[in-house]
């Protein structure tokens, strides 16, 4: 998830690819006709529908019409293939696709306020962590199986890697289709490894090894300040705290949640928090005082950090900061470290997904267009342009998947865990971040932090 600014070159326009809201009369008339027809059709369908995932007529009976609007957060290398795919959809089905990019920092706020106000686009690209919240409020619509060309949920699940759709499921109903898949990898500087006398072809496989390597890689100035951290967390960003702690909490046998409250105020949970904090407090191989506008990715690129953990999208960021960064040469990627005592390690992961606005009056076409973005051809083009992995079943065989980082990510998919899916996800992530940071800066012990976390979760669930 990059925070870089979006692509601002909107001058080139494909037919019916609209950035400004300029519709022809025919478009409006067509859209209005489709909306009226759809309203009648959906009324009939609603009368026929039961409690199961919606099953409208199969794709062969469904013709998309009208227009769809689509919001996603800015990421330039993703926008380019998206535009061409949208243009092809328009040319094939005569459906206008209006696309808006929104800066990442504003994106969630804009989505929640638009959705709750009954406006917003037909399709959102949102994080897997947001699906439970929006679904619980009835702001997004369940996946229309017919519009995406399947007869059952099982058929749809078979199209993707196992478990991938869990991140978009709330209370047994599927609300989204995946844009991409990300799990955590270890990124490291090969040149700094060599400098420290470490073998760059043997990166640490366990947390114990990582601490040992990081100690050799960490350097300090005469006053004792860290000049290079052997390893660096991305401190103070709640979603990354969740991704890190998914594997650590699982390894120590703790749990984020327990009944309707937090579950970290246990010996295991306290140990997990302490482990996170000890990388800076006890082992002194990580340093929260180092800062860069791009976080640890920027510090890795500048040589201020020798190792960090993040998704495959790190590549585009580090190479944009430092042109000398070359995967396999200056820096490299390795599997997420596990604990030596772990039997079945898990790896934190997340996805971005397409969701359809529950207030959209063209939901079927919206799902149909979303499905268009899930084809092997679309997945391959997106993968080659942006390293985004659309986790369809055959993605590992697609052109572009031979990238080393992506292959490692593929190997980790069976161990991937999205963490808790709850409507109060933001409160959970903030409570976890507050707990971790309070220990790291020395304001609290791990036990105090765990207690405060549990209380915060209990309040969030209760409210």
């Amino acid at each position, binding site marked *: 998830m990059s925070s870089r600014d979006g692509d601002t070159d909107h001058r080139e326009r494909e037919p019916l690819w609209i950035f400004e809201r300029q519709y022809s009369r025919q478009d409006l008339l067509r859209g209005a006709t489709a909306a009226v027809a759809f309203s009648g059709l959906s009324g009939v369908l609603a009368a026929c529908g039961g409690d199961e995932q919606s099953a409208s007529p199969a794709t062969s009976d469904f013709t998309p019409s009208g227009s769809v609007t689509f919001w996603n957060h800015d990421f330039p290398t993703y926008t380019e293939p998206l535009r061409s795919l949208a243009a092809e959809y328009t040319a094939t089905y005569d459906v206008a696709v209006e696309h808006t990019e929104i800066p990442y920092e504003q994106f*969630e*706020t804009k989505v*929640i*306020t638009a959705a*709750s106000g009954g406006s917003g686009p037909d399709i959102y690209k949102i994080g897997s962590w947001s699906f439970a*919240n929006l679904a619980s*409020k*009835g*702001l997004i619509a369940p996946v229309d199986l017919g519009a995406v060309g399947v007869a059952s949920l099982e058929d749809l699940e078979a199209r993707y890697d196992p478990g991938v759709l869990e991140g978009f499921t709330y209370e047994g109903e599927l609300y989204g289709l995946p844009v991409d898949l990300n799990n955590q990898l270890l990124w490291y500087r090969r040149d700094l490894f060599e400098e420290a006398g470490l073998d760059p072809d043997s990166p640490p496989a366990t947390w114990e090894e990582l601490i040992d390597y990081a100690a050799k890689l960490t350097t300090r*100035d005469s*006053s004792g*300040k860290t000049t290079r951290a052997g390893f660096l967390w991305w*401190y*103070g*960003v709640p979603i990354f705290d969740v991704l890190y702690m998914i594997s650590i909490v699982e390894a120590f046998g703790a749990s984020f949640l327990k009944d309707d409250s937090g579950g970290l105020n246990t010996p295991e949970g306290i140990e997990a928090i302490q482990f996170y904090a000890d990388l800076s407090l006890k082992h002194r191989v990580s340093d*929260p*005082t*180092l*800062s*860069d*506008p791009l976080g640890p990715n*920027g*510090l890795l690129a*500048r040589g*201020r950090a020798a190792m960090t953990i993040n998704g495959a999208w790190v590549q585009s960021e580090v190479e944009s900061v430092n042109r000398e960064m070359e995967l396999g040469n200056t820096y490299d990627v390795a599997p997420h470290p596990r604990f030596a005592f772990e039997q079945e390690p898990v790896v934190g992961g997340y996805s971005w997904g397409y969701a359809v606005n529950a207030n959209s009056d063209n939901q079927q076409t919206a799902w149909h267009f979303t499905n268009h973005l899930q084809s092997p051809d679309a997945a391959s083009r997106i993968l080659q342009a942006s390293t985004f992995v659309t986790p369809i079943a055959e993605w590992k065989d697609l052109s572009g998947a031979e990238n080393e980082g992506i292959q490692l990510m593929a190997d980790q998919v069976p161990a991937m865990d999205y963490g808790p899916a709850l409507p*109060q996800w*933001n*409160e959970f992530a*903030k409570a976890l971040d*507050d707990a971790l*940071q*309070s220990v*790291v*800066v020395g*304001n609290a012990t791990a036990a105090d932090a765990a207690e*405060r976390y549990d209380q915060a979760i209990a309040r*969030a669930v209760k*409210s």
Partner: protein
Amino acid sequence: MTHLTAVRRSRRRLAGGHDHTPSPLETAQRRWGIAFAAPVIVYLGVFWIYPFFLAVYYSFTNFDLIQADWIGASNYEFLGEDPSFHNSARVTLWFVLGALVPTTVIALLLALPLSRPGHSSTLFRSLFFLPAVLPLVAAAILWKVIYATDGLANTLLAHVGLDRIDWLTSPGVALWSLVIMVVWRDLGFFLIIFVAGLQTIPQTLYHAASIDGSRHVRTFLWVTLPLMRRTLLFVVVIGTIGAMQSFVPAYILTLGGPAESTQVLPLYLYINAFQFTNMGYASALAVLLFVVLVSLSLFQFRILRTKW
């Protein structure tokens, strides 16, 4: 009726005279006055007054952008128990003091020489005002780069042989880093206001003080400062309101961290409203902020009261 007659009638009426019949001129003036004021009144009503009362209502509910059930004063009761709110209140108090006092003092002291006519005064006034022209978000992003470990600030420190400062990542320093940014941005604006105020002070008073043997400090304390009370009041009031409502620096530079050490009240309000969708509690925070600001403003008016 002549215009003069109509004016006399309206004056008599204003003075408590017995002529209660409005003249055609008065009636026309009233109608035109209402017509011209109507758009602004409607705008204020729709975008200020109505949302304010709506926020007060929501503060007594559990509104989550979907539904709002009445829960009485529960949100306000929770304010007393919420450790994050207590922390935000403390942080905001320090932030306001840290931003307001130096900005006001430095701006006033700079305004003294820069209020004198001359090309150099105009040039320096323009230079100081430039940061105020920069969009706040752009300024915040700029300072985020300046404050980075390898940013301009630490580079300059290294050049003079000083150690690196953890501007945004040390809990004891981060808030003051935000204060520096805010002072840099607001200084020019306060300076212009003070210059305007100083230029209204008759020079004859300074001449008289000089003849009486008053030196610079005494002249400043006994001539300049008393005559600047109105200007000072205005600056302090709007400065306090601006600092208490400051959101962008904390949001862009630190997101309230490290460890909530820069989580000012507006940011905490935003988190509750738009991340937690806890609109009811956020509304209670907003109402509380409003009450505090009004109280502070009234207090400041009282302290710096002048005859109007």
